[in-house]
């Protein structure tokens, strides 16, 4: 049997914070290091501008479409509140090259340029080896809870997905975390029914490890003047500012669970309360764990965020596993 490729990353998000945008860059940086393959990005709010921006990021990292390297569509939910359209989604498209042309092409212009998230998740799960994928949730649980009810998907998750890492909740004292609060029924369903282990990176992780905004005009700019994530960062809020990082933490842990970036709680169960607060109850049979901040790792983690998110795209051609056969060589006919 052919060797399995790196695990496939399924990233579901609302792209409502700069942390979630940076997390997408972190995942692609991890892909560049062959620690994962970004399979699909699905959005949990019907915001076309956010989908267009996510698509531009995907195209930036994946490079031009080619044989066996198509850019998958962005999954976009069509119901619910569109929410705020951040300047981070708009201003990068206004950036121009010296010749007057735009730096990033806006290719998502209507909902037909996107895909139904459930169908997209199902189709791309079909292409994964058993236990060779993970999900990162960096937004409300709306899409993933719906996916569990989509015909065949729960079974595919059971077969193919090692775990889900949720950037959400608060483990310790604190108010309800926005991702959980945005769709409490979906969060409850997700924690109750997700068929494989769940790891949670609570808000306390994100606030303890801030992403250094100064790196945008330093490390990012040193790699390329045109990184859509850096341009989004500049547009998101008046510079300079640092950003919390629970979505980045979730992504980093998902692709590198053995690197020791975070400590882990013992097994238990995460409950979602009526007001959106979360609590964790330890139990031997529980399938949930949450990440615990380790101050000694902070420097490593921040360095990883910056290095990964600012990394130059590594264009990878994930060809089918035995694609060296002659039918796919451009100049070789199918056997007759």
């Amino acid at each position, binding site marked *: 049997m052919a060797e399995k490729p790196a695990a496939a990353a399924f990233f579901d998000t609302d792209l409502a914070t700069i942390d979630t945008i940076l997390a997408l860059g972190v995942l692609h940086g991890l892909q560049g290091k062959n620690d994962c393959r970004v399979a699909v990005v699905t959005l949990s709010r019907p915001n076309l501008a956010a989908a267009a921006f996510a698509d531009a990021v995907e195209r930036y990292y994946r490079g031009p479409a080619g*044989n066996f390297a198509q850019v998958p569509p962005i999954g976009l939910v069509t119901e619910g509140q569109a929410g705020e359209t951040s300047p981070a989604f708009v201003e990068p498209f206004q950036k121009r090259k010296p010749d007057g042309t735009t730096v990033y092409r806006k290719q998502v212009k209507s909902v037909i340029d996107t895909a139904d998230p459930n169908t997209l998740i199902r*189709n791309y799960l079909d292409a994964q080896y058993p236990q060779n994928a993970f999900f990162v949730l960096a937004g409300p649980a709306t899409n993933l809870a719906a996916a569990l009810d989509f015909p065949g998907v729960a079974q595919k998750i059971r077969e193919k997905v090692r775990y889900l890492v949720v950037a959400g909740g608060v483990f310790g004292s604190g108010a309800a975390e926005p991702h959980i609060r945005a769709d409490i029924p979906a969060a409850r369903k997700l924690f109750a029914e997700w068929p494989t282990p769940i790891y949670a990176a609570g808000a306390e992780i994100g606030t303890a490890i801030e992403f250094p905004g100064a790196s945008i005009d330093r490390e990012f700019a040193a790699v390329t003047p045109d990184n859509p994530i850096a341009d989004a960062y500049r547009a998101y809020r008046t510079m300079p500012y640092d950003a919390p990082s629970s979505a980045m933490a979730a992504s980093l842990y998902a692709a590198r669970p053995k690197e020791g970036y975070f400590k882990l709680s013992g097994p238990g169960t995460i409950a979602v309360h009526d007001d959106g607060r979360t609590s964790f109850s330890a139990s031997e049979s529980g399938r949930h764990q949450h990440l615990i901040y380790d101050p000694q790792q902070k420097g490593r983690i921040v360095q990883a965020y910056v290095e990964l998110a600012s990394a130059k795209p590594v264009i990878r051609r994930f060809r*089918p596993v035995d694609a060296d056969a002659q039918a796919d060589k451009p100049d070789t006919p199918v056997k007759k």
Partner: protein
Amino acid sequence: MNPRGPAFVTGAALPRRSILRGIGAAIGLPFLDAMAPAFAASSVPGKPPVRMAFFYVPNGVIMDSWNTDYTGPLQSLPRALKALEPYKQDILQIGNLTHNTGRALLDGSGDHGRCCGSYLTGVQVKKSVVEIKSSVSFDQIVAKEAGKQTRFPSLELGMDDARQAGECDTGYSCAYTNNLAWRSETQPLPPILNPRALFERMFGTGRAMTAEQRAQQMKDRRSILDFVSEGTRQLESGLGPSDRRKLDEYLSSIREVERQLEVAEKDNSQIDPHMDKPYGVPADFSEHFKLMSSMIAIAFQADLTRVVTFLITREGSQRPYREIGIADGHHPLTHHRNHAELMEKVRKINEYHVQQFAGFVEKMKSSREGDRSLLDNCMIVYGAGLSDGNAHLHEDLPTIIVGRGGNTIKSGRRIVARRETPMCNLFLSMMERMGVHMERFGDSTGRFQGLDLA
């Protein structure tokens, strides 16, 4: 008097299933005004039946010549479809339909075998040369119901290759590249390639003619119509002028097919005997297509069947098209690596295929059925299991539906679904129009939205 019974079988009113019989001949009739009461008494009161056909072209198409850059009412058709310009009000072009089961998933290369195998079955076929496994195709699910009322539940036609064994794409059996229709997981329905065989199947009695009878028929150059002339006269005597004209046109179309067959057989006997074409199969692609598609039109006209699949050429076909100046094989050309010259040749092949298809559409459009054209009562899908043949893409599959499905399809426009929309969603919606109701088929996620008149 024919010893096997009357030459023309009918009841008090003219039944829809009336047949002209003669020695070795059984010719179904088109819908005549005199049958209107019979139609009214059918299972779908007052409505002629809906028929469907799939015309499949291999190796994808050059999509920039296929797709328009707009949605809504069809304006000037794109280059690949230009030959259909006169019929654009009868066309619904659909964008973004996807066959995920045609993709590699975990099976590696072999997109040609897979895309054809999954096209009407909606499943990922088993990658094997000997252990064939697919699923019952959508056309056969329909045929099982619709076929209860017709002489043939379905007809499977092709023009290229009907080998069922051996490897035709990397690790995939020829059964996958050479068939569209599947009766069961393991049983494909091989297409009829030979027009003479199709003709005899459609108009024969099912009993083989003796060698002497066949030899005599050939020697006499007698038309099959000669064997039913007595019944024809009887029938005509009871028809009004409009029906007589319709019957005459219909029988003339059969005679025309016969004449083309004779020409093809004559030509065939004079060409290189080593040519890879069985006796009776025209060497000329266009003639072959014309014969096969004419018989599809007749089969629909006479309601001999309501379900047809037509594998125009097989996936991975290496056929050159010298008749339009292209000596290179079709499949190698489609791996053009974006060379303009090679892409142009593929565009010409795409256009050529559609030109042949346009001839069929013209026949269907000019044939009347009640107060509509025969085409109005059909759903003729012309399409492919790959979009970009160079990159082996299984999304945005080139798909048009010609005909209005019994006035249930709003045509004359281009609609585009969301990306990744399963092709099987369209099949579910087509099934409904054929009177078959299923909640799921293949990898469908629901019925296709947007076909309707509303």
